[in-house]
């Protein structure tokens, strides 16, 4: 309790200073690093690196920086980027287990591959040109094939479902982009300490790429070009979110290993320790977050041990707890949430006092088995393909309720009916020709009329080889719905032979659809006063953001031609023509009478030895006595013919033997 009071006192003191400090700090460049660790219910650990660079506006600060990366600054100025987000992701975020209703998942769960969106501060007609140039610049900067987003068949401009109040936005994804270290290294280059010091030194490549989910993100906000607004310069936020399976530390080898959560430490997760902070960062902290459900679970387990408050968790009296941590936290932040009875806990560790000689290696050790579940999104979304064959199919998006009703409370309308708004944003490549009139909505497995459910739609059908199809739908669903299924039928298109990718037989990807719950916002209620929060990661967590859900990427097999087909066709056509031509020519210069006379004279002459032999043989076979040789015309001819055939066969065999 004493500690809690001191924290409060500190906060109060800080509040008074805060405004003065904030004024000054706005005028210098800032960089901060943070790492948030969270044990996940399925025996995995989430590690979320967060780096933020801020730079004051050029008007007051000039264009020479000592922390902010030059390349990004130049990028923003050259293409007049207002906001941009680029993410490289490998693996899928498991919404059901790792949570879908917390700020981290709604911001950092990204579709597989590359996702890029950007808004520009240029006139409407220049946006596409800016986008194309930006994709090329980013492609060079991050060693990725982002330049494939350049062509108009690869990007689209969502109106309201992807991001509210955004104009001049362009959005594109590359679901099949492989993400690896060559993308991480340039990303690290943007940090002042790269991976030489500080938290980024933990990024041991084999460890972080071994994880179940890996998402590297770069988010850039600049209002340099706003003339009216009080410009706050540029903010570059770089995050790396990984989900790792800890190697169990050798302890608690009891029979309950199966349900016991694995204990972990930084060195067991990453194979490295943190040897001090990056000296250039203003703040460098490590946080361990316990989810609300886990906190309440821990409370109940404590109650059975006759311990009765969350204060045990706060005061870090590990002896009675279900877990312990090797370092003692500088600060424990409890979420002050009015709506929910559970609230999450954040343990803050500062890297201030650690160095090479005393590296920071946080160890998190479970003592008793605990089970809990993450905060889930109101509806679970999945998308799949229906139908078979290479001609047509259907896309189905299913939304299933998770059976919690507390989300609904906030969205009761005037008539007292509880409803839930769901925005759906889906981009479909042109060769999957979606018939938007076939959209059907099933509520609880009963067909429903669209007008009842759909609040707003924006569809821009695809144009062959020009633009992809874009569908934005806002659904208004009753709260008590259990399952919603949307289906759309499509025809599979044919591509030109040049348009097939090298591995055409693998199929074609339809990028993830985005399900957005615009009325359900998620944030952590850490501090009442915003200025009290110094750490950028905490202020990010406090920001409200809508709950998002990216669906699976779909793999559509299209008819793939035999790519040697054109040549085969050419060959066979030419052969037929050549045959026709040759026989025509021969027919024209044929001398029929002469040939007949020739036949007659042949008949008069005795046939060759092979002809005799053949006729004898045939007579024997027929079981008839040898007749006098029939008027064979071809005895001499066939003899030569056979010689020739043998010669050709010999040449062919030799050819085959030597070259085949």
């Amino acid at each position, binding site marked *: 309790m004493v500690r809690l009071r001191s924290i409060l006192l500190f906060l109060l003191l800080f509040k008074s200073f805060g405004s003065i400090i904030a004024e000054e700090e706005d005028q210098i460049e800032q960089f901060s690093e943070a790492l948030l660790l969270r044990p996940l219910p399925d025996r995995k650990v989430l590690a979320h690196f967060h780096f933020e660079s801020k730079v004051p506006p050029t008007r007051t600060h000039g264009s*020479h920086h000592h922390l902010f990366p030059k390349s990004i600054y130049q990028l923003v100025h050259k293409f007049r980027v207002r906001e941009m987000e680029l993410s490289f992701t490998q693996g899928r975020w498991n919404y059901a287990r790792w949570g879908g209703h917390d700020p981290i998942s709604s911001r950092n769960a990204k579709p597989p591959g590359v996702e890029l969106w950007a808004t520009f501060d240029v006139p409407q007609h220049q946006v596409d040109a800016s986008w194309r140039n930006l994709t090329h610049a980013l492609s060079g900067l991050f060693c990725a094939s982002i330049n494939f987003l350049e062509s108009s068949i690869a990007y689209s401009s969502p109106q309201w479902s992807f991001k509210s109040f955004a104009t001049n936005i362009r959005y594109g994804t590359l679901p099949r982009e492989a993400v690896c270290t060559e993308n991480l290294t340039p990303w690290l*280059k943007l940090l002042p*300490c790269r991976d030489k010091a500080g938290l980024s030194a933990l990024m041991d490549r084999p460890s972080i790429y071994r994880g179940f989910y890996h998402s590297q993100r770069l988010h850039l906000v600049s209002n340099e070009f706003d003339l009216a607004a009080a410009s706050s310069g540029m903010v570059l936020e770089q995050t790396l979110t990984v989900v790792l399976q800890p190697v169990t530390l050798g302890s608690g080898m009891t029979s309950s290993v199966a349900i016991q959560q694995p204990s972990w430490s930084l060195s067991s997760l990453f194979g490295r320790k943190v040897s001090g902070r990056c000296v250039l960062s203003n703040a460098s902290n490590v946080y361990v977050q316990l989810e609300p459900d886990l906190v309440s679970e821990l409370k109940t387990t404590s109650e059975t041990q006759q311990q009765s408050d969350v204060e045990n968790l706060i005061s870090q009296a590990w002896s009675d707890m279900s877990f312990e941590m090797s370092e003692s936290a500088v600060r424990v932040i409890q979420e002050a949430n009015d709506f929910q009875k559970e609230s999450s806990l954040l343990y803050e560790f500062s890297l201030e006092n650690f160095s090479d000689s005393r590296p920071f290696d946080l160890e998190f050790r479970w003592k008793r088995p605990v089970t809990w579940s993450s905060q889930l999104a109101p509806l679970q979304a999945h998308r799949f393909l229906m139908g078979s064959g290479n001609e047509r199919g259907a896309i189905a998006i299913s939304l299933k309720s998770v059976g919690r009703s507390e989300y609904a409370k906030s969205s009761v309308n005037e008539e007292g009916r509880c409803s839930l708004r769901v925005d759906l944003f889906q981009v479909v490549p042109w060769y999957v020709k979606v018939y938007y009139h076939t959209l059907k909505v099933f509520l609880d497995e009963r067909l429903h009329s669209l007008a009842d459910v759909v609040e707003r739609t924006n569809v821009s059908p695809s144009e062959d080889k020009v633009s992809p199809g874009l569908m934005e739908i806002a659904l208004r669903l009753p709260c008590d719905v259990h399952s919603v299924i949307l289906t759309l039928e499509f025809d599979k298109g044919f591509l030109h032979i040049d348009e097939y990718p090298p591995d055409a037989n693998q199929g074609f990807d339809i990028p993830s659809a985005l399900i957005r719950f615009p009325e359900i916002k998620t944030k952590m209620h850490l501090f009442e006063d915003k200025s009290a929060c110094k750490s950028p990661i905490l202020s990010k967590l406090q920001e409200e953001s809508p709950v998002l859900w990216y669906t699976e990427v779909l793999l559509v097999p299209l008819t793939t031609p035999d790519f040697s087909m054109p040549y085969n066709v050419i060959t066979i056509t030419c052969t037929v023509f050549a045959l026709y031509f040759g026989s025509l*020519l021969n027919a*024209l210069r044929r001398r029929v009478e002469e040939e007949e006379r*020739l036949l007659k004279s042949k008949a008069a002459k005795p046939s060759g030895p092979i002809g005799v032999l053949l006729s004898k043989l045939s007579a024997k076979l027929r079981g008839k006595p040898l007749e006098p040789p029939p008027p064979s015309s071809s005895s001499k001819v066939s003899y030569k013919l056979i010689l020739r055939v043998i010669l050709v066969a010999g040449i062919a065999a030799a050819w085959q033997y030597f070259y085949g």
Partner: protein
Amino acid sequence: MPEGASRDSAMAEISEAPTSSDPPNTKSEEEHFDPKTMRKTKPGLKRLFLTLTVFISFLIALPFLLKSIEIYRAPLPFEDIDLLSTEMEKNHLLFPCQFQVVFVNFDDITAVNELGLLIDSHMQKLTSENSPPCGACGNNVTVAVTIDSNSNCIHSESGNGDSKWQCGMLNGFDKVNDHDEDFDEYLESVLDSKNRKVYTVVVMNRKQEDVRIVVGKYRHAWIVGNDSVEKAVEKMAEIFIKVFVNGGKEEGSIRGEFMPVGADGKVVLSFSLLNSDPHDWVYDWDFKELDEILLAPVVDALRPVADISVESQVLYHTPKSSYSYWDDTQGSYIFSTKDLPFFVNSNEWHLDTSTAAGGRSKVLHFVLYVPSAKECPLKLQLPNGEISMTNGFISPMWGGIIVWNPPACVENFQMQHLSRHKISSEDLKMISEVFMGQLRQLFGLKSESLYVGGFATSVLLTSDKGFAEWELDVLSRHHTCFNLLQCGTTLGSLSRLVQSLPRMIIMDEIGKQVKYSLEAAKLSLGNVSLGYSDASAVSSRKARALAEDAFYHPSMMSVSYYSFEHCFAVYSPFFLPVSLHVLLAVMREWKRYRVENRKYLAWKVKVKVE
């Protein structure tokens, strides 16, 4: 084929045909008539004509086929390209220059024209020692001589009227030796060389012990002292040739043909401050000050040569990749000149090409390296064992590096942990001067303010713009020459490439670019010979940019090479068998016709004999 094999017998049959159809005439005739060697009718031409028609029509159609499968190649003026590149390689571009000599207070000489010839011959001697570098002054040099003494004022015949020296301007100007700068400005106000582009040397006969030679910031120099005319003439010729024309370069330094200017005429000066280990100390600079006060005039001055933009960054954790050792006598860590190739650590120094620099502009890196505590102070040892004054070095076409030892390491002062320092403005000024010297060297100029020639040592006045007028002239001439050379070699390699790949598609745009590039190069050459140096610089830059545009055109890069094998594979399934048929048919018919005709002739002869 049975037909071919049994031809002889077939021939025999044919000659029988008329005999069987016609009633036999006489017994004796039949005896003498051998159907194997004779025939009575003329052999028909119908089939021969038919096959020949087919064959000839194939031959006629062949050009049309070739035309139809021809790929598009814009016509390129190969001869003109070859002409340009050989011309650029063979004889260097030479500019016309105007010189003026003024003898002040020389009472005993009057032969101005002879003096002019003498200076000219000395200059010829100096230029003939080594072939003139590209961008030097050519043979059409005019030397105007003026003798300005108390008694008379004589002008030589050469030299145009308006550039003449007005006599008596220097009367009463005594403090020549005290304030070089003031005298320089005064001379400039008199000569107005900025607009007239005449190089002037003023010789002043004075009673003083040593002879001083000063080269001003504009286009003139003066010699003060008690010197004989012959010696003064030698010195003058040297100043003209070695300083004004060649830019005071040492022989064998960076070759003048290389100018660190991009094809689009842009140069990006990228300044990087590298803190090799921020755990020891973190230094920051006020680059804005450096940019606005020290670099802006230079950028402005170089505008005729290149369009320069400046950017900066600060990087951390950037150790150098070469080793240094501790030297007790120097009290510092030493790295020697042989380590220099390994100094730049390309793995850790993310100097990056600039996004803003797009296109083909040249990036010159200027690196200020702050060593870490364990290698501080770090000093560069020259090959002669001395410690370098500037502690920096350049890498041609790449940029320059300065090692700056922070004051903290010299004082061996235990710093507070994690403190951020600013490089003091005095240090920054010194650093910027070294950078300036490096920039001058990268452009092929001397970084010292003394020129030691064969006859005399002259003082070069330094301009606060970094480059004197005559140096800019030299650069501009070199730039023009370099651009034209580059244009010639680029077009030459383009033409070689195009000629070596006969089935490469060449877009119209490339043809146009090549054409315009050649036109611009010709225009530039014409302007050079006429003496319009600014216009020739502009058109030479255009010529080079267009040539490079053509060479790096995306359609040249892509795999638009439509190979002959491909073409053959597509057409051979039809044309190979058909042409075989046609050829064989023609050959056979022709052979048969000849044989039959011989038979017919033989019969005729026989008939005649009988």
